[in-house]
């Protein structure tokens, strides 16, 4: 396999992780636990297919996906900020809710329990060259840019400073006149939209929605965030690393070199190792999971 093709494949796998990890970093830096990435992604994937199916345009699909992510991000924000619900429970509830909703409406819209019909996407893999196909997909560029952009927002803009302040010490931020709930609402809503774009990419890349198609990718993104010690750039590198491992595994399939299940475990094992601090301990934002009073 040529190196370019390998690279293209890595990027193709990494894009959903990059979007979701960018969204997750934003919410977690603001102090809101981000277990709903999986649900945001799945909602984005489904809404994108709905939009693309009824309009014939992938751009409308993208828009619908972002709106879906925004909606569920707001549900997350209202429940965990306005009502001070346990953020972990809210995340899990949203994941379950989105699975149910996408299944229900898959039935209602396409009368199927497994997948949607084929819809228009950005790239046509029929061109034969996945490298060129990736280059023509705007979501690939958006995904690659999301990490540097997020780094810039987090460390070079007032909004980013507020997010970090709110996530490290909400009381101090409050004293300085920052409206803590408002910043958190913004961060969680943006996080929903970003993660949903990962789902949009996934669905439009495959030109259809299949039941449960995110298949744990939101949790791999979460693993990348923790492995990257809540830093956007490091989390992005972790996403690429996990995607490279997956690409290798796909290449090795059939050679029986390493059972695929062991490659699947890599992100999760690395995350636990990072949390336990074998190399350098991964420390979350100080106010993560705490609601401001």
């Amino acid at each position: 396999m040529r190196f370019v093709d390998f690279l293209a494949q890595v990027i193709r796998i990494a894009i959903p992780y990059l979007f979701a990890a960018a969204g997750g970093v934003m919410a977690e830096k603001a102090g809101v636990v981000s277990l709903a990435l999986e649900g945001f992604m799945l909602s984005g994937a489904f809404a994108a297919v709905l939009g693309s199916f009824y309009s014939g345009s992938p751009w409308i699909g993208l828009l619908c996906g972002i709106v879906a992510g925004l909606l569920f991000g707001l549900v997350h924000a209202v429940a965990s900020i306005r009502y001070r619900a346990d953020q972990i429970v809210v995340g899990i509830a949203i994941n379950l809710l989105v699975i149910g909703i996408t299944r229900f409406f898959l039935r209602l819209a396409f009368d199927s329990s497994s997948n949607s019909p084929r819809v228009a996407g950005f790239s046509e893999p029929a061109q034969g060259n996945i490298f060129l196909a990736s280059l023509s997909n705007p979501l690939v560029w958006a995904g690659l840019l999301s990490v540097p952009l997020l780094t810039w927002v987090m460390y070079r803009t007032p909004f980013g400073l507020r997010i970090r302040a709110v996530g490290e010490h909400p009381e101090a931020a409050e004293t300085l006149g920052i409206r803590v709930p408002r910043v958190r609402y913004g961060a969680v809503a943006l996080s929903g939209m970003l993660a949903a774009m990962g789902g949009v990419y996934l669905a439009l890349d495959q030109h259809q929605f299949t039941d449960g198609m995110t298949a744990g990718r939101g949790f791999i993104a979460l693993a990348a965030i923790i492995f990257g010690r809540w830093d956007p750039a490091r989390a992005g590198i972790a996403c690429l690393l996990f995607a490279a491992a997956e690409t290798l595994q796909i290449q090795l399939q059939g050679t029986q070199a390493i059972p695929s299940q062991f490659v699947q475990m890599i992100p999760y094992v690395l995350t636990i190792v990072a949390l336990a601090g074998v190399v350098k301990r991964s420390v979350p934002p100080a106010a993560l999971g705490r609601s401001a009073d």
Partner: protein
Amino acid sequence: MSSATEVASPESVSPVRAGRWRTRVEEAILPPLIALLIALVAGDILILSFGQSPGSVYRMLLEGTWGNAYGFGQVIFKATTLIFTGLAVSLGLRAGLFNIGAEGQLAAGGFAAALAGLLLPGATPTLIAVPLAVLAAALAGGAVGWVPGVLKARFGAHEVIVTIMLNFIVLALLNYVVAAHLHVSETLHTPEMRAGAVPRFSSFLEAFHGSAANITFLFALVLAGIVAWFLFRTRGGYDLRATGLQPDAAEYGGIRVGGVWIRTLALSGALAGLGGINYVLGYKHYYEEGFGAGAGFLGIAVALVGRNHPVGVVLAALFFATLSQGGLAIHALVPKQMVEVLQGLVILAVAAAVPEVRRVLRMRPGIAAA
């Protein structure tokens, strides 16, 4: 200081106590009721969107679950696993620990039970084989639960992340073992166990014919009682609850919090692992990939709606089991996926209602002062 002695005078104690008790009951019961109402309204909307009448769909749901012996048996069967995972999650939450690993612990327990039944000679008497298989399930689940406990006590690793990651690791590991070494060809399950099966209810009561409900349900009820006794009547339970309320104060009071964390997560894992026997010993008699079908995650919902009390857990398990069995019953009119939406909504609504109800009740005159 002097005001404290005034409050303690006998005349003032009883009305305050009664008020507190009422508040506690309301705090426990109101959130699930609010959630149920929200779910009913959402359910109506979904049913109407499919052009059906809510009344007839809900009637069909009840008739297909509590209305006949088979449906009731299936509710009991599904509730059994949920009681185990619900108890597991709630035990952790009582100690301030969020065990999201019940899914993996459940699978590990089921696999260990199936393996025990496979390794034992076929002639092993049931009275020996069943306890051994049950023990294997508890040990396997407990071992998976023990890991995040140690990582938290020793290294401060947050148990939520570790248990999530362990779910994926355990499931991948079990998939590998079954796929590479133990499966019956053309299937994703292990060979049938030689010993250790437990009887279904249908072998005593003909009415239950066809349903998978088995005596594991009774074991689950007994276990709920034991957990309640442990939590509220033993020193270990006191240490556990004190740790959950305020770990620093517990440590200061002489409780070794790290030890409580490790023991609680191991116990929690063992409870979730025991859930595996319902399916393996009571129903299929083998381990199958994905047999838990989300029962581990639903255990979080059960613990939440059951307000972390063993009695509440049993009731909540019956409620969620009714929903999932009810989905099958109404499938002719409305897609069964509707109940998954309702389950998600109930969890979200309860999570949001718990702090809100507490806040509103605490603002009630007379209670706040107590």
